[in-house]
């Protein structure tokens, strides 16, 4: 007895919560009291005490059974019932293996896809930026009133220095620019690393503390100050072996000796990754400097909103436009929350995808609800027996909901596993700026798991409620007396509900399919856009010259010339050229220009075009056609007459009918230049197929010296086979120069439609999964109907009905539901697809071709799904059908 008590109390304690402990001890106490009393009574009647005790215990009966029964009756504790329901549910679900597998798989698809997309949405749009008080951070930009340039245009040092002195909305302001530099550590090879020049105020503004040494100071952020730099944690590990004595040591950066003063913390990133941070070192000359290349970040003073800051920036810009019209006429300035600039254009696609995946989850829920209704039909007798035995309807609902939540939880577990794998693919959806900035990136973390748990519970209840209520409403008398034969009021109600669910499912699938169709067509159209060059067989490689050896323009030009000669001599090379800003690289340099002899537009309203320095071989190497005149030639040297080749768009803009060859353009680049147009080159989509070609001016490198060029090498075979010989040839020419970004041009082309491709793949998968689930729904309902009416079909066939008649009777319902679902779905899709506008290319959101195809595909699939079970009806053996039940 003592042992028993000990165990009972241990169990009670393990049970964990007070109510349970109290109840268990009451059960034990009462039981002990009862047995004691019984023993006493037997002893009084003359039995030996030990024997009396034995008899008393025996009389008490099986202890565990008693306790189970007593527990059930006692208070009906929620968790006890839950435990019971879970046990019962697990048994029942394991029993119905096919149903369980189908439901869990469906839910895993829905929940997994939702989780994967949510994890991206969370990382991009919801999680706070990993900086001190991120809501107070704003970016400051300029914008040209002509709307020709970027909505968020970079600014120049003159404006930045003026803003920093004048603006009252901010407690701190910093400028930064990212640039590739060449680093030479003592005894090491030169390496090219993307680095950052930034005001001393920037890192403290973000709340960043160095893990080693210190950050650079305001005093070091001045022209003439000693050169210093801080290292990114990654570079410190990669290139300097995490040596702590790196602080205080000197490295060569672009040919200058620079002292390393500190190391930044692990995981810190801000916009693009940067290996090295150095001060801007602005001088007084920068107060009047031309050119725009700076991004500006500022911290709002407490109590100032970004909108107020934005108004102040616009006011400052109006004053600047009057004070320095040569720089700021027709320019305005603006402030925007930093997250907007980090998220960029990803917000809309992400939200659209989240909506789409939500639809998929709904379809999955509908489908499982349908399966459960079908199963509830099979379980009518089981439920009826439980009701007859006194189970309250509430208890039945509870039981059914427990089962559906169990299914959802199992589906969620499986789905999260899938989502975890999926996020690797989806990490591409995070804009690179944000990917670097978000410390942990996307993935399944606690936030996402909480989301999944909520989704699992809500979906479990969502798809379980209707079937559960349905089951609880069974009239036991009905179910028992019906026997196996169906057609009672209850099952007719369930049938209607199932039909409604199938309509909903089809409608949702239509919306997804329409979205998928529009994306597929957009991608196809994007791929069809001729980019203006031939990327096949082309290898690219960048070299940014550094070091005092190339201080003179002649030396730099000489290097590229000799390099081209060496590359051209490599076996398998057909053509070689070089360009300052490669198409699809995301780099461009634009400035205003005027046409000599045409009316000069007012200051600030001059046309804006892109400038690119090229070597004479570039057009041939890239496969860009010369439409008029000639390309650039080796004779277009320094000192010879300045020449330019313009793009088709520029030519047609200013000479809609005539030829531009022989006319002159005036542009400012350090100085004023006048260049004679010698030819017209075909248009190139420099920023990808979604962006219209810019007005381009190709200038000979000789007359427009630039030190950072990308080689374009056309080979006769696989361009990657040239990578190693190319590196070797360039190293041979000058071992102190680093070669970066050696890759086939086709990679850039592929990447330029990468976002659309990923969106398309996701949408198409959602659409296909939705369609398959809808198919299962139609099929299931059809099979169920045939099963229900097999008696009737048997009679009809026995009476001589034609197979065709029976087939059409059996199929009709499925087709009617499909038509209804299609109608609802098309209406829904028409009202929703306009939200996808930003993702589409070349097609309208209500593109009739897409919608017709979706309708045809769905009708065909629906007919097939309805036909398969209906055919079974015609194969019924009338005798067997009549005899069954």
């Amino acid at each position, binding site marked *: 007895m003592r042992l028993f008590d000990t165990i009972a109390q241990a169990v009670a304690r393990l049970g964990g919560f007070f109510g349970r402990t109290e109840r268990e001890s009451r059960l034990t106490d009462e*039981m002990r009291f009862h047995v004691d*009393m019984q023993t006493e009574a037997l002893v009084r009647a003359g039995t030996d005490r030990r024997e009396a005790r034995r008899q008393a215990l025996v009389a008490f*009966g099986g202890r565990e059974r008693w306790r189970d*029964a007593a527990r059930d009756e006692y208070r009906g504790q929620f968790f006890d019932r839950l435990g019971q329901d879970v046990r019962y549910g697990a048994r029942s679900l394991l029993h119905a293996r096919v149903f369980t597998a189908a439901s869990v798989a469906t839910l895993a698809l829905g929940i997994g896809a939702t989780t994967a997309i949510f994890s991206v949405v969370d990382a991009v749009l919801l999680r706070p930026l990993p900086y001190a008080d991120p809501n107070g951070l704003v970016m400051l930009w300029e914008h040209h009133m002509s709307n020709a340039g970027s909505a968020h245009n970079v600014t120049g040092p003159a404006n930045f220095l003026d803003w920093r002195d004048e603006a009252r909305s901010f407690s701190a302001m910093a400028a930064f620019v990212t640039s590739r530099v060449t680093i030479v550590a003592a005894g090491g090879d030169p390496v090219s690393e993307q680095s950052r020049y930034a005001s001393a105020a920037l890192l403290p503004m973000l709340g960043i503390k160095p893990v080693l040494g210190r950050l650079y100071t305001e005093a070091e952020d001045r022209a003439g100050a000693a050169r210093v730099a801080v290292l990114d944690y990654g570079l410190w590990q990669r290139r300097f072996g995490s040596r702590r004595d790196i602080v205080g040591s000197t490295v060569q950066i672009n040919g200058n000796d620079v002292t390393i003063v500190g190391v930044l913390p692990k995981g810190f990133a801000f916009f693009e990754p940067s290996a090295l941070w150095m001060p801007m070192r602005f001088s007084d000359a920068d107060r009047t400097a031309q050119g725009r290349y700076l991004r500006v970040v500022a911290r709002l003073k407490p109590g100032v909103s970004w909108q107020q800051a934005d108004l102040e920036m616009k006011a400052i810009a109006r004053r600047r436009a009057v004070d320095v019209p040569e720089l700021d006429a027709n320019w305005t300035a603006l402030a925007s929350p930093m997250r907007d600039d980090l998220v960029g254009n990803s917000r809309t696609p992400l939200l659209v995808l989240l909506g789409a995946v939500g639809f998929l989850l709904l379809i999955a829920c509908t489908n499982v609800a349908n399966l459960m209704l079908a199963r509830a039909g099979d379980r009518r007798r089981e439920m009826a027996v439980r009701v007859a035995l006194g189970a309250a309807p509430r208890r039945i609902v509870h039981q059914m909901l427990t089962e559906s939540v169990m299914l959802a939880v199992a589906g969620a577990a499986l789905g999260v596993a899938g989502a975890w794998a999926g996020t690797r693919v989806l990490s591409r959806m995070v804009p690179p700026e944000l990917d670097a900035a978000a410390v942990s990136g996307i993935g399944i973390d606690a936030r996402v798991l909480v989301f999944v748990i909520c989704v699992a519970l809500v979906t479990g209840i969502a798809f379980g409620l209707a079937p559960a209520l349905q089951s609880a409403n069974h009239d036991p008398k009905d179910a028992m007396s019906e026997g196996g034969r169906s057609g009672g009021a209850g099952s007719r109600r369930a049938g209607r509900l199932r039909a409604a669910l199938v309509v909903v499912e089809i409608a949702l699938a239509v919306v997804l399919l329409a979205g998928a169709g529009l994306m597929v067509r957009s991608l196809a159209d994007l791929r069809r856009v001729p980019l203006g060059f031939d990327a096949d067989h082309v290898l690219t490689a960048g070299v940014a010259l550094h070091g005092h050896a190339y201080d003179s323009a002649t030396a730099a030009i000489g290097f590229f010339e000799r390099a081209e000669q060496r590359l051209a001599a490599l076996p398998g090379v057909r053509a070689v050229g070089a360009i300052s800003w490669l198409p699809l690289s995301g780099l461009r340099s634009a400035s205003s220009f005027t046409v000599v002899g045409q009316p000069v537009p007012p200051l600030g309203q001059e046309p804006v075009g892109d400038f690119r320095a090229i070597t004479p071989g570039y057009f041939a190497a890239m496969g860009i056609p010369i439409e008029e005149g000639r390309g650039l030639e080796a004779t277009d040297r320094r000192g010879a007459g300045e020449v330019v080749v313009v793009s088709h768009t520029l030519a047609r803009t200013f000479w809609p009918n005539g030829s531009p060859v022989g006319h002159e353009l005036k542009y400012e680049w350090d100085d004023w230049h006048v260049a004679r147009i010698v030819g017209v080159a075909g248009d190139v989509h420099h920023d990808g197929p979604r962006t219209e070609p810019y007005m381009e001016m190709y200038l000979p490198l000789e007359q427009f010296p630039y030190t950072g060029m990308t080689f374009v090498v056309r080979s006769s075979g696989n361009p990657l086979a040239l990578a190693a010989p190319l590196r070797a040839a360039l190293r041979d020419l000058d071992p102190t120069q680093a070669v970066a970004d050696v890759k086939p041009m086709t990679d850039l082309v592929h990447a330029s439609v990468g976002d659309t491709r990923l969106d398309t793949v996701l949408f198409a998968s959602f659409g296909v999964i939705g369609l398959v689930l809808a198919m299962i729904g139609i099929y299931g309902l059809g099979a169920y109907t045939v099963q229900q009416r097999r008696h009737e079909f048997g009679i009809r066939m026995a009476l001589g009905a034609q197979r065709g008649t029976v087939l059409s009777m059996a199929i009709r319902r499925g087709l009617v539901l499909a038509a209804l679902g299609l109608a609802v779905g098309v209406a829904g899709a028409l009202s929703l697809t306009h939200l996808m506008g930003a993702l589409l290319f070349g097609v309208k959101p209500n593109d009739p071709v897409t919608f017709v195809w979706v309708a045809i595909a769905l009708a065909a699939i629906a007919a097939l799904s309805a036909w398969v079970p209906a055919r079974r009806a015609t194969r019924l053996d009338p005798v067997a059908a009549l005899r069954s039940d």
Partner: protein
Amino acid sequence: MADDARNDLLQGTLDMLVLKTLQLGSMHGWGITELLQRGSEDVLQVGQGSLYPALYRLERQRFIKSSWQTTENKRRARYYALTARGRQRLADERANWARMSHAIEMILHLSST
């Protein structure tokens, strides 16, 4: 005979009998079994496996209430007492029972004259 009676004791009947015993005054579980057994001259032997679940059920339905008390032998025991609801319930069940047994009696007394 005794075994048969115990086995055939229907759920509702046990509830009624428990309520009846408690009408005589509050009592602990063992006391109820004793009373049922003695009161029925050993015909009714209620198994504890049925009694305690019945007690908890009745308590949950608020027909009876319970509290810890000390017996005359200074032992701690759980005493059950009838509530107003329980009293009403007992009256209903008695009426039902009377009707049922009367009906059954009538059938059993039908003669084939």
